[in-house]
């Protein structure tokens, strides 16, 4: 979609943005002491390259409708990208978790701007509100006396940066290649078709057409019912398994103490 609306001249710009982003990530990733051939200029150079990459991406992207939409979109996507990069670059695990939460908030903002309200808010509830709080909990309890060595350096900064760059390049080109109308094999059925083919009464169809959230619910618990139920069952089994592992550990410890 992006490429269809862009002049062809932006492809080199996108490639340059991806490359400079990759190099910036490699420069910014925490390295083991001794491997520093750039010295203290490393961080500054990485920052400059990163800002250049962001600017190129923002300039090459497709413009949204109004000025307000555009500004909000740019801000939330900037928050998402910077948060994501800072998550891997920061040395302190607690700060990494906070940056990750910020990245999630940015992603949720992007989803809200694009009109996917349920998905946006669910991202915050599930990831930022539940999972990441548990992470923070463990991180804060785990290292009261400073950082462990494995937190201070990145193991494979070069390979990690290259992998990230390749992923970014692939996604950019594949999204850019998508034309306005995808091939027939992969057409997503339109909402009108989904409502028309779903076995519901006329009143229900009207209600569905009015409320996108109700339509999402109908999709999930109609067409994808089996997948939803299977996912629920899987989570339940995982929960029971976790409790079983914990209580067996306690029993084993008690037996060991009793025997000694």
């Amino acid at each position, binding site marked *: 979609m992006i490429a269809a609306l862009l002049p062809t001249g932006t492809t080199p710009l996108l490639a340059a943005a991806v490359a400079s982003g990759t190099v910036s990530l490699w420069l910014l990733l925490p390295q083991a002491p001794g491997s520093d051939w750039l010295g203290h200029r490393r961080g500054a150079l990485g920052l400059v390259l990163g800002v250049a990459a962001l600017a190129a991406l923002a300039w090459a992207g497709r413009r949204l409708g109004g000025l307000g939409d555009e500004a909000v979109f740019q801000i939330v996507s900037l928050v998402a990208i910077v948060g994501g990069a800072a998550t891997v670059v920061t040395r302190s695990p607690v700060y990494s978790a*906070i940056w990750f939460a910020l990245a999630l908030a940015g992603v949720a903002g992007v989803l809200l701007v694009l009109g996917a309200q349920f998905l946006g808010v669910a991202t*915050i509830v599930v990831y*930022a509100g539940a999972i990441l709080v548990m992470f923070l909990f463990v991180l*804060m309890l785990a290292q009261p006396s400073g950082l462990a060595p494995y937190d201070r350096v990145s193991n494979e900064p070069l390979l990690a940066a290259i992998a990230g760059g390749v992923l970014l390049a692939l996604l950019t080109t594949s999204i850019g290649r998508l034309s306005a109308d995808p091939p027939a094999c992969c057409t997503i059925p339109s909402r009108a078709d989904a409502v028309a083919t779903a076995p519901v009464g006329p009143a229900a169809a009207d209600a569905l057409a009015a409320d996108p959230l109700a339509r999402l619910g109908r999709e999930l618990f109609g067409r994808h019912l089996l997948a939803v139920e299977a996912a629920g069952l899987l989570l339940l089994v995982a929960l029971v398994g976790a409790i079983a592992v914990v209580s067996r550990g*306690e029993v084993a410890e*008690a037996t060991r103490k009793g025997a000694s």
Partner: protein
Amino acid sequence: MNAVLPSPTTIAALVKIGLLVGGLMTAAAYLVLLERWIAAWVQDRKGPNRVGIPLTNIRLFGLGQPLADGLKIILKEDFTPSHVDRVLYNAAPLLILAASLAIFAAIPFGSVLPPLGIPGLPDPVPFLVAPGLDVGVLWVFALSSIAVYGVLLGGWASNNKYGFLGGLRSSAQLVAYEIPLGLGLLGVVLAAGSLKLDRIMEAQATSGVWYAFAQPLGFIVFLVASFAEAARLPFDLPEAEQELVGGYHTEYSGIRLLLFLVAEFLHMITAAFLIVIMFLGGWHLWGVTGSAAEVSWAGALVRFAILSAKILGVIVFFMLVRWSWPRFRFDQLMNLAWKVMLPLGLANLVTVAVVEEYRPWLVERLGSSGAGWVALALPWGMFFVGWIVAGLLTPSGTDNRPIHTHGPLDAEQSLAEDLVEA
């Protein structure tokens, strides 16, 4: 429309935000005074009654007290201890206050205005900052889970063991009680068929049956869980003064402490709003407000007044509970959440689902009023059954002996046996 000038919708939203933030902050200041009055009344004291209009001798029952309190705490020295993590220490109070205020984007504070006829502004104007948000209930839920970060980070960044313990207790409590809170919400959402809070109020006004009467079990679960989410007594373990000095805000002073305290008060106000909107009919009162979508100016004012009065009533209830109940112990708190509130919430949800599923069938068989009575009788039956079962099966909350989960394998016991044998 000029792209630079904001549209009437934006201006309306800004006006609503201004009114809401101003109203909430004033309300929070005066609710502190109300809380002190109620505390004094419960303890048979006089309470603050001296501060009136500044520089005069007019006392006005102490109505100037919030101004004096506010000035005092703002002008206090804002001291930052040297051992804190500065960035997070400064960010935590801002985060928690921002999250607590942003919640109100999705909470209606009245019904609708009568048609104004302003071009570009769709009539009628709702008393709601973000009327386009379809997932209002989830928004409230998401931002109240963000508020956990403020508490957790404030406790951790303080680098103080009391603060950290308070932060840990608080986040564990908030995460645990989010689940019964969500189950209570789900019952209402299922019955109303919408995630928008204004639609939930409309549904109660149309049927005339508030969800507190239609789902008594859900109401109790939600009420208890919202007490815990607001960290009010009997759930105020995060800042138990006798044990933790001040909990997660032990190291804070001056205006940053004020931000934390205001955020806590806003949590209570949010909880009161949600209880009234979701279970006590919102702006609806039988025979007074009606349930029409269009209202006159008088009707809009009456609805606003009724909603505010109900919210004030719930807040007074919150404050009276504070002086009537002792604090829970931490294991009692967790037992209540996981072993009592969670099953009760699930029972309520299943009952509501069954009632809503078979309502058309009931209406067909029994007529609409008969179906209404059956739809009320089933949840009330479940309420009493659930109450009795929970009372019989749950572990005694006052038992102070250590819990032996593994009976014969218990380490101390087998050690004692070994010693006896030796």
